[in-house]
């Protein structure tokens, strides 16, 4: 470890940050080049946590070797160990850190009094941590005690999470459930007893500790009163348990940890840190949607608060098979005709070959259709979790960042924006960027090590700016003018446009360009300032430009399949896809 004094005298340290994902381990090298701190190189290799390697170190070394080859910088010794800290000749790096999402989720068994109160709060906690809910018991459970005990024994959870009751409320019914858990723990043979987390009525804490034994953790009651929900303490503990029980047992992770000065961070947590950083930096609400191979994460941050929602049930990898009951939903987003059996075959094949990428347009658009369904389901669940069961959308935001290869590696950037608009159906005005190089989590870690360096790295193009979106809410007959737009930019000059209801238009504004937009919606439409109220704003360009989405909210698709496919193709065409 470097002393602070010593660091003050040094240049900004070079950092090598690895993200160990389910399928891919990526490595990013950050350092000063031409006087500016930036992302120097990034490489990816297969994650080697499973058979036949069973050693995460190998995949990271492969990635580092690629960076070494691309930059000409020696990073590893002959024995494969990282050279750290860097020497004066520029060999090695100063810091190594990593984020991890390759570990299996924590299997959690929920125990609570009421489904829609205590178990609902417990699920809110689980959505903030990399967990898999294997089963739950509540008062509404119609299984008898024997069956409940059998379920607990059969599922072999890593954690039993107990919650229920308000502080000062009655304890008898929760105590009955606690005793069922105690009986089950007594019957678990061998060394692998689950950890128990108690987040219920505080009056029972002592009794719970006595009944459930030494491997019991007490945290704040999730619902100290019916009006208050506090999930932070429980989420913090579960993140810690995830690190101890799941990340720490990833083969080879110990060797990687020995290279660095920092504990490995769960990837969604690092992304959350970065989203929060953006919200502070740009003084606006920031939304990140990450459709990964095994997990979908939605993170929403403003200057006061960051919310993270993770769903391990969805993903573009092995869990894509979970979409089998939603074939019709998938079909409605397709630009070409494909029968249900063909879609089902694809879901199975993709789940068996999760690393593969499309080689035909039909499969590219099919994967994008899957991303739309997965994204919509996750965003709806996130909104319901954050704002109550009736909520189905997230509030407006000023910056949207997309992650996950289906979103970020589309064949044209317009496809990415169209997917995001279809998933989120947002209202208002916002900028869009993608984490094309998959470095957002690394930047989240870097923000802890060298916060100032992150700004320079972002200015150096670590994210890909796609442009700005003006998303109208409201509805009118197609053909009617939804909004009148005048754009003034240095390169294009003045451009006037009337955008019809039900359509999408794209205005050219390249990366680095700036324009004044005068927006005047018709009285049936709202761009965030009230129906019919216009404004002049400054926008910045990107790979797509400025997108006016006048399809209205809620977005209705034609019922006729052929007409719907035609409309999809038209929208794709209009957005440059």
């Amino acid at each position, binding site marked *: 470890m470097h002393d602070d004094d010593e660091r003050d005298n040094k240049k900004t340290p070079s950092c090598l940050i690895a993200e160990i994902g389910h399928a891919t381990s990526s490595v990013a090298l950050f350092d000063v080049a031409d006087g500016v701190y930036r992302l120097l190189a990034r490489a990816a290799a297969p994650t080697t946590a499973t058979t*036949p390697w069973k050693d995460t170190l190998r995949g990271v070394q492969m990635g580092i070797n690629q960076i070494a080859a691309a930059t000409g910088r020696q990073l590893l010794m002959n024995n494969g160990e990282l050279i750290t800290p860097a020497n004066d000749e520029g060999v090695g790096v100063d810091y190594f850190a990593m984020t991890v999402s390759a570990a299996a989720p924590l299997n959690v068994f929920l125990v609570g009094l009421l489904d829609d109160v205590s178990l609902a709060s417990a699920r809110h906690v689980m959505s903030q941590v990399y967990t898999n809910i294997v089963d739950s018991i509540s008062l509404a459970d119609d299984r008898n005690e024997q069956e409940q005990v059998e379920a607990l*024994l059969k599922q072999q959870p890593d954690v039993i999470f107990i919650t229920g009751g308000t502080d000062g409320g009655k304890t008898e019914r929760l105590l009955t459930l606690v005793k069922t858990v105690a009986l089950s723990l007594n*019957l678990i043979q061998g060394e692998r007893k689950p950890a128990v987390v108690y987040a219920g009525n505080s009056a029972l804490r002592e009794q719970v500790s006595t009944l459930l034994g030494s491997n019991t953790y007490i945290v704040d009651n999730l619902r100290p009163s019916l009006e208050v929900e506090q999930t932070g303490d429980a989420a913090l503990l579960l993140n810690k348990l995830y690190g101890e029980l799941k990340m720490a047992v990833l083969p080879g992770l110990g060797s990687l940890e020995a290279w660095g000065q920092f504990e490995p961070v769960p990837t969604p947590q690092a992304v959350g840190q970065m989203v929060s950083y953006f919200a502070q930096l740009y003084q606006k609400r920031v939304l990140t949607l990450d459709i990964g191979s095994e997990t979908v994460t939605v993170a929403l941050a403003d200057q006061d608060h960051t919310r993270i929602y993770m769903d391990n049930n969805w993903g573009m990898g092995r869990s894509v098979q979970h979409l089998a009951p939603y074939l019709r939903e998938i079909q409605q987003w397709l630009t070409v005709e494909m029968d249900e*059996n063909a879609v089902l075959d*694809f879901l199975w094949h993709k789940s068996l070959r999760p690393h593969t*990428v*499309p*080689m035909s347009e039909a499969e590219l658009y099919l994967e994008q259709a899957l991303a739309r369904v997965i994204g919509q389901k996750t965003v709806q669940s996130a909104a319901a979790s954050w704002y109550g069961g009736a909520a189905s959308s997230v509030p407006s935001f000023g910056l949207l960042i997309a992650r996950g290869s289906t979103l970020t590696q589309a064949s044209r950037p317009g496809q990415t924006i169209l997917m995001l608009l279809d998933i989120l159906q947002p209202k208002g005005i916002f900028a869009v960027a993608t984490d094309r190089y998959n470095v957002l989590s690394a930047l989240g870690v870097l923000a802890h090590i060298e916060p100032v360096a992150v700004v320079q790295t972002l200015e150096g193009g670590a994210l890909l700016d796609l442009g700005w979106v003006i998303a109208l809410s409201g509805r009118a007959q197609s053909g009617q003018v939804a909004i009148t737009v005048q754009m003034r930019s240095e390169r294009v000059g003045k451009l006037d446009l009337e955008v019809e209801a039900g359509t999408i238009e794209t205005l050219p504004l390249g990366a680095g360009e700036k324009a004044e937009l005068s927006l005047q919606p018709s009285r049936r439409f709202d761009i965030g300032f009230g129906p019919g109220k216009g404004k002049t704003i400054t926008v910045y360009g990107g790979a797509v430009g400025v997108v006016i989405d006048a399809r209205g909210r809620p977005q209705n698709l034609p019922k006729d399949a052929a007409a719907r496919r035609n409309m999809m193709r038209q929208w794709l065409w209009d957005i440059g896809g």
Partner: protein
Amino acid sequence: MDIFPSITHVNPFTAIKRERLLPSPGEVTMRLGQQVSPIQIVARTREQPQFVIINASKLLAVPPDEVVRYLLIEEGQTLAKGTPILRKPTRLGRAKVYKSPTEGILYHIYNGRLVVQPSPQPIEIRAMMHGYIHNLIPHRGVVVEAYGALVQAIWGSGKENIGKLKQGSADGESALTAAAIDKEAHASIIFAGYVAEAVMLDTLEQNSVKGLIVGSMPAALCAAAAGYTFPIIVTDAIGTTGMAKPIFRLLQELEGRDASLFASSNVRDGERPEIIIPLPSDSNPTPLALPGVKLEIGHTVRIARSPFTGQVGKVSRLYQRTKSSAIGLRMSGVDVTLQDGQVVYVPYANLDLLA
């Protein structure tokens, strides 16, 4: 740029080592170096059935801590089904006796509940292939070593079996035909390009086949496969694209030989279903390709995605930088020359090195 493709073993003659393990500790019945046949038991143990919980407090209508007063047995005592376990005198001077609903031992008394542990059931693990005991894993099982052909698959229905290989379609691109399911089918493991209809699986079941190997099969049939008594292995893809030529050719060459099907897999741990065909060890085995091998020009690869699913070719050009694919996705890849001479740029994520 170094490319490390995933590897699918399609090896006509190699040394194969396979763990045969008990689900829980038990007894290993083999000696090191011992020759084994597929049906020989290599390890055995006894599986613990579910506990039976008797809510004595509720039965007797007494508080939990009073249950012990009425108990006729002690913790650890062996019980037969019907053994009296509780006795509570009634006001009329008679007593009500409760009997054990199951045999076992009284394992635990907690909170007024009696927990009875039924007697364990035997579990036996067989070798499932001809070979030698290469290694003993104390209390868990053995490693069987065999020489022969090995084919790794992408999906299995989750069972194991042995049988003689029998060709069921004209080639790897064709469907299994009813004509192939003749009187010899009952002892056979049938291999074919693909199966597209459930009725064909029903016919195989009626003919008591030992197993089925197909290049591809639709998802709807895969979902129903667990309902059949024989194991099913899919080598290439979900759908009806057929079987990769090198795999079909290898199975064809070995028709009539005993094959072992291991149709279970654990995708999370990277385990795959396998077909093992033991062969006489009278020549030098080709070592299995090691993980982390770099892709090189001349390597035989299989493509995993449409429109080339299951097609096999040779790597003909490596690229140092990413390149746009035919549909505009920019990624790392290689040129593959297919067997018909067509050259295709394939993202390396879609390649399997066949070795």
